[in-house]
């Protein structure tokens, strides 16, 4: 296998590919201001400040930097959705990474906090945002320490704060941290949490955070990786950015591949053109399934994404194509299951996650997610009945009425149902509890049936007690 790993960045695998966000990862001291300055650090900020805010905004729009948090909405377009003339406007950077299978923001925060800070500065300059809050997941102690230290360095050196680099651009970046709640990764829940409340999502539409967000003011919520793209973009221009990747998904993106592969890792891949086959079997990526086993199924875009079968291996990692095929690119996390995997149990690990993380605001998620978990738990424990399997789909139907997205399968004669689904909840936690159940049950129903309790009907009159016990 090719590719380089570093003991100071466990999980990350560098390759012979363009590096937009991971270029400093090779250095052990990549998180220091000294290293950042020796390797073009804050040059993107200088380039941005030499132009007008509108020009910088246009450059980001021209590059079509897709949001890397999950929804894939273009950042430049999002910045333009704030209502004209309403101030102040805020930037909230979402570093509450906790989608199952996903980790890239943690590496970007731990390994290159100055790149993130520089990206935040560029975004605030371009969109006229007057304060930035960097919300880091509570459990990520090292990321919090690295970002805090980097902010202290950057303030002292004049890169953050009043009159940055002698310009009239002034900005405070505040490090904020959570305390353990998956749902806070949803942007309106993130805002609630930042206001000091329980992290429950707000009802939207009609008002999205860009119109009414933090403290009721226009607020842009962007993912850490999205911000990390901006310094390179400012240094090299949108033409260089769009020259990498596909027309609809330019640049690179961070993808974590975990589970039953020979070399699980986080890779910065060329966006939109790298296929799942490349990722799972390529020598520069995972190098095949562990022990040369057969691939059974894989989750393409984080725990919330409907599952794919080996039939989908030749799809490129591109949001629209994955969506049309019945799943989502999501947060860039592939979880691989080989043929030794107990599928109902694997589905349970995800459904339990979402049931556990339900904030309790919407009934279909709070009650439905818990039902799904309990029924599935019963089935996995060998106590389920045929009725339980139908009940799983029925409960799912109350969270997501109508057709639910799934992949096509030649073997099962299934045609793909494209993403997304309809939902009766405010956010995606509820549907995500159902997704693994639906995928597993649609694609591998026989494995569930094999676990059902075997009950033999015995007429009461015909047998003695001892025979009944023997039959059971």
């Amino acid at each position, binding site marked *: 296998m090719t590719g380089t790993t570093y003991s100071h960045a*466990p*999980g990350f695998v560098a390759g012979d590919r363009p590096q937009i966000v991971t270029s400093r990862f090779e250095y052990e001291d990549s998180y220091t201001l000294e290293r950042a300055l020796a390797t073009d650090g804050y040059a993107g900020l200088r380039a941005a400040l030499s132009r*007008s*805010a509108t020009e910088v905004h246009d450059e980001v729009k021209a590059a079509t930097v897709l949001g890397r948090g999950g929804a894939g909405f273009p950042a430049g377009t999002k910045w333009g959705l704030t*209502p*004209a*003339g309403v*101030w*102040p406007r805020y930037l909230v950077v979402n570093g509450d990474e*906790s989608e*199952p*299978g996903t*980790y890239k923001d*943690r590496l970007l925060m731990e390994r290159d906090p100055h790149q993130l800070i520089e990206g935040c500065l560029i975004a605030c*300059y371009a969109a*006229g*945002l*007057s*304060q930035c809050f960097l919300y880091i997941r*509570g*459990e990520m*102690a*090292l990321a*919090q*320490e690295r970002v*805090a*230290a980097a902010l*202290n360095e950057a*303030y*002292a050196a*004049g890169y953050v*704060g*009043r009159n940055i680099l002698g310009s009239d*651009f*002034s900005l*405070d970046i*505040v490090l*904020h*941290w959570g*305390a353990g*709640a998956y749902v806070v990764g949803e942007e309106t829940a993130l805002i609630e949490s930042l206001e*000091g*409340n329980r*992290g429950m999502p707000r009802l939207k539409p009609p008002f999205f955070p860009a119109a009414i967000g933090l*403290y*009721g003011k226009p607020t842009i919520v962007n993912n850490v990786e999205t911000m990390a793209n901006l310094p390179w973009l400012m240094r090299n221009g949108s033409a260089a950015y769009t020259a990498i990747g596909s027309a609809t998904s330019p640049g690179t993106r961070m993808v*974590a591949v*975990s*589970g039953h592969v020979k070399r*699980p890792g986080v890779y910065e891949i060329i966006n939109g053109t790298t296929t799942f086959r490349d990722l799972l079997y390529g020598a520069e990526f995972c190098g095949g399934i562990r022990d040369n086993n057969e691939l059974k199924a894989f989750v393409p875009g984080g*725990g919330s994404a409907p599952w794919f079968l080996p039939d989908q291996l030749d799809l490129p990692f591109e949001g629209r194509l994955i969506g049309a095929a019945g799943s989502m690119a999501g947060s860039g*996390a592939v*979880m691989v299951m080989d043929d030794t995997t107990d599928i109902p*149990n*694997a589905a349970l*690990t*995800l459904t339990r*996650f979402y049931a*556990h*993380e339900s904030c309790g605001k919407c009934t279909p998620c709070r009650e439905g997610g818990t039902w799904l978990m309990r029924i599935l738990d019963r089935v996995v424990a060998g106590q389920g009945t045929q009725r339980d399997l139908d009940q799983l789909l029925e409960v799912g139907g109350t969270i997501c009425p109508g057709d639910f997205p799934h992949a096509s399968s030649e073997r099962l004669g299934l045609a793909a149902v494209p993403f997304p689904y309809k939902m009766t909840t405010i956010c995606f936690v509820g549907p995500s509890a159902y997704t693994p159940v639906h995928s597993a049950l649609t694609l591998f129903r026989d494995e569930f049936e094999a676990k059902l309790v075997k009950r033999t009907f015995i007429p009461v009159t015909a047998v003695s007690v001892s025979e009944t016990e023997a039959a059971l």
Partner: protein
Amino acid sequence: MSRLTEDNVRVAHEIISHYPRSRSATIPLLHLAQQQDGYVTNDAIRHIGELVGATSAEVLGTATFYEMFKFEPVGKYLVNICRTMSCALMGGEELMHHAEHRLGIKAGSTTPDGMFTLEHAECQAACTEAPTLQVNYRYRFRVTPETFDALIDDLAAGRLDSEIPAHGTVARIRQHIPAERGVGAVPPEDATNAPSWMTVAEAPK
């Protein structure tokens, strides 16, 4: 049961000064209280309410939403073993089974000597290094029964004290905004003009 100490009140005021509204400091202050006492006491909740301008019930309401906050003492070391998909695929459940035997407690409880609390955790964002665990939110990757036992031995003997602080302390480095460099947080109702660098007037949309 204690309120925040004088030193910590100073830290609290610094944290509050970073936000346009003081209520936003609620979660950071709860962490501060937990750092001081190892868990969040009722007195600390009342004190935080006074500091941020909220009722005790509001602060408690926020605090109970988040899993990291504990309302009764836990072990010096909180051991969280991940059980979400990638870790489960790579032996997370077996690791928990081993941990329960090694520590002699079930997940969700504390050893009688008050050293270790064992908990199931959901995805820790280190999925390629499965199975993973965190001790007081410090990672251990690709944990085997052998490395788990060695970790417990090291913790019990105090050999990891410099790397892993006692439960309650998450980040050991705080952000400080120097007065001469900071812009200062302004309540949103007092900042209704366009920022100075936005020189081009916006056309109404």
